[in-house]
């Protein structure tokens, strides 16, 4: 068998949460990818919705660019909203 294309699978575990990447699988097209995702990744009641995306469609950052992409944010702690006193009554911040 020729190798089927690779797909990335995203599952929404419950309403109100975002889809989360859970893994990948092989399938010859979108319909088969959805069926396979159902069979491989939702066997234990993990999800209410599935997205599948051809892996080749994902554009990833280059690990070699890590320093210039992410380090500048590292030393700017003032960007974190941790300098404000939060009243006790305010939940979920």
């Amino acid at each position, binding site marked *: *068998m020729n190798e*089927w294309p690779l797909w990335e699978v995203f599952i929404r575990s419950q309403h109100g949460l975002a889809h989360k990447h859970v893994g990948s*699988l*092989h*399938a*010859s097209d979108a*319909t*088969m990818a959805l*069926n*396979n995702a*159902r*069979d*491989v990744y939702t*066997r234990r009641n993990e999800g209410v919705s599935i997205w599948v995306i051809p892996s080749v469609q994902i554009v990833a950052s280059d690990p070699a660019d890590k320093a210039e992409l992410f380090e500048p944010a590292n030393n700017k702690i003032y960007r974190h909203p941790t300098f404000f006193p939060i009243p006790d009554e305010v939940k979920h911040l």
Partner: protein
Amino acid sequence: MTSALERAKFEYALRLADSNLILAQRLTAWCGHGPALEEDMATANVGLDLLGQARLWYGYAVELEGRGRTEDDLAYLRDAPAWRNLLIVEQPNGNYGDTIARQFLYDTWHQLLVAGLARSRDVRMAEIAVKSEKEVAYHVRRSADMMIRLGDGTDQSRTIMQAALARLWPFTGEMFAEDEVDLLLIESGVIPAAGTLADSWRHDVEQVLERATLAVPRSGWMQSGGKSGRHTEHLGHLLTEMQFLQRAYPGAQW
């Protein structure tokens, strides 16, 4: 068990339990041997669904019988002539195309059957059928999809699927054959009439085969005997494997 109707219900529940269990045993044998990891998982999932459904039918059967036998007694301690499954489910897995074709022919029947049983006058049967409906709907969605892919695939896959259909077709008549058990239950509104089921089955199967660019096999001689315990040689071999543990170590538990 007193009335003829109750005996017929027992017999019928046993048939469905046996068909589902034998097919489950066949499907789970693909575990670790599937053509792709994804297919492997999917096939085992369907097998486990059918195993769960078989347990529901066995549970009802032993209740109807009322002689203290358990579902394990029925599954592990009966020899081939006492089994009531359809002959199609005991046919060997063959190549993956054979397995898909067998599954598609069975799923299409199974879906129509549980839809009919969901309206049964027997409340317990209706409950089990309703519980099975969603699982079976997915089974047929999957096996029909694979039929179309493999039929309308390459020349080689098409040839394999056409050959698989030809091999299995003679075993499909038994799904719609009525014996005295069926007739009594149809008359009592417990199960759907086989004639209506046969028409819908043929219609559904033809639609998928057309999309799969596969020819509908010519209907000739149809095999029968599963419902009355006359099986093909394959069932005995399957049972020796499935029942080995309880035969070698009676009463073993974990």
